[in-house]
């Protein structure tokens, strides 16, 4: 009896899997390259890219856009391997990556799709409002260890940073710690806390008056205090905002990129044109990034 049941189940399973075959290949056919855009890369951009993809797909139901994060390096590596149509990057492509791409027959083309600023944040109880870039560098490299050295209370400074695999970490290291000098070998102080997420940094700054952290302008909640930054001692202290990033007076800001293989064509071109038009750039502003065109 049991064996008959087993046999019946086996046959059923066979029939079922056979009947499934054609349907799944039909699904595959609808994923053909003419309606499908693969978009991958920087974790900084992933929320923005998702919002864009969502809005664009609502307007163009025939297009499917898949967005994944993983980091700028991962995105560019996928472009080099030819597995994505659009690579998101929060940094410019490196020389050796261009060389790798060319060896693979890929011609990376750069598109600036929005701007991003890193805000330095402290607890609202902290009386310090402004710092120079050099002071922030000295704080993170461990030369300044007490808030009283930069005009605050007598409290130890707890330095918070993103993990080393974050694009924001590398950008902060190059632009702030090393003040843009590529010969400089300054490192983060060893006791810098490396937190795995933006949320971790925000949670710690929110409850700890000793802490200093940094994060993308788009991710800073209203209840934390942003520091006004002067590029040089004696220069003007500038708070990060859409206006100050666009007129380039705020020191820690960068462009965000999408890379394509060759000049974009077809639906990828349509999508990129849409991204650079006003509707998509409004989404940029909504998410706290900085639009590339101002109307």
């Amino acid at each position, binding site marked *: 009896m049991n064996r008959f049941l087993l046999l019946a189940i086996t046959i059923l399973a066979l029939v079922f899997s056979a009947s499934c075959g054609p349907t799944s290949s039909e699904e595959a056919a609808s994923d053909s390259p003419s309606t499908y855009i693969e978009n991958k890369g920087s974790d900084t951009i992933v929320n923005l890219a998702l919002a864009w993809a969502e809005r664009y797909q609502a307007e163009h139901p025939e297009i499917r856009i898949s967005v994944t994060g993983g980091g700028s390096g991962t995105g560019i590596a996928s472009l080099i391997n030819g597995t994505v149509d659009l690579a998101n990057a929060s940094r410019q492509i490196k020389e050796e990556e261009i060389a790798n791409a060319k060896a693979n027959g890929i011609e990376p083309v750069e598109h600036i799709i929005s701007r991003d600023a890193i805000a330095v944040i402290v607890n609202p109880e902290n009386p310090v409002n402004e710092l120079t870039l050099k002071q922030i560098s000295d704080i993170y490299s461990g030369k300044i260890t007490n808030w009283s050295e930069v005009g605050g209370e007598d409290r130890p*400074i707890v330095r918070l940073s993103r993990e080393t*695999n974050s694009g924001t970490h590398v950008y902060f290291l190059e632009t702030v710690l090393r003040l843009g000098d590529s010969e400089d070998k300054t490192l983060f102080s060893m006791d810098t*806390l*490396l937190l*795995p997420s933006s949320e*971790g940094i925000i949670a710690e700054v929110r*409850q700890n008056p000793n802490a200093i952290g940094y994060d993308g302008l788009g991710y800073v909640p209203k209840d934390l205090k942003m520091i006004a930054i002067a590029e040089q001692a004696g220069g003007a202290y500038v708070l990060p905002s859409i206006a100050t990033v666009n007129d380039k007076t705020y020191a820690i800001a960068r462009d965000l990129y999408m890379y394509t293989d060759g000049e974009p064509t077809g639906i990828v071109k349509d999508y990129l044109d849409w991204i650079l038009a006003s509707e998509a750039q409004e989404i940029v502003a909504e998410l706290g990034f900085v639009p590339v065109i101002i109307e």
Partner: protein
Amino acid sequence: MEKSLNWREFVITRLIKASGYSAILFVALIFFFLVREGIPTFWKAEIASLFSIRWYPIEEYYGILPLITGSLIVTIGATLVAVPFGIGTAVYISEIAPRWMREILKPLVELLGGLPSVVLGFLGILLLSPFLRVFLDLPTGLTALTGSLLLGGIAVPTVVSVAEDALDAVPRAYREGAWALGATRWQTIWRVTFPAARSGVLTAIMLGVGRAIGETMTVMMVTGNAPVLALKLGSLFSPVRTMTATIAAEMGEVASGSTHYHVLFFIGMVLFLISMGVNIAASSVVFRAKKRAERILS
């Protein structure tokens, strides 16, 4: 009918045997894989750099000593929390608590064991670390101590359920014998039940330590992950970076085959060897204790 029964017997025995051997096979395969990916560290990274005190892999600083000491200090702290609490709870459940209490406590402890570690990590970030910072007047609450307390909490259910089973397995006649000789309850527990269940209790501690050293998510969330060499007792009150958190945080984005990739596998190998060491040490103690017991009895 007879024949099919024999056939079934044969298959089932073989299946059970195969699953028994598969445990050995899997451990061997995992170790082989770790070694294959970890050993290239020795010619890819400089040995001197490997035993330096700075871990900053994106600039080729591969000092793993801070990570090892970080893991050790958190694990020792967690053991100091989990062992007394765990054994105490086990003794209470198995020896002292009335039946109805036991019926409530046992499932509750098991429920605690089923709590996802990421949830404990959240509690750690939002409640425990702010509390410790204010209570102990520390610069930050994200410290080895926070990790130890939470890991201790994670290891307690493991210790309790294994130790409780061991105590429960001690024949009732032992206790009745002790009572008949006029021993108090405490004397019975400490001098009779406990030594009789010693090997099970040691296993419980060992499993608890293993749970603590391998735990990743919670420590990554609450220990601050600063790769600082932790050699003093005071390091318990400052941030540390453990081996598990390092692997978890960095493996996702490392280029396969790079030096950093091999060093991460090397760390995995060290972790494997440490937990193997703990296992061997514990089982040799159990083995020696058994031998002595046999000598006394014979």
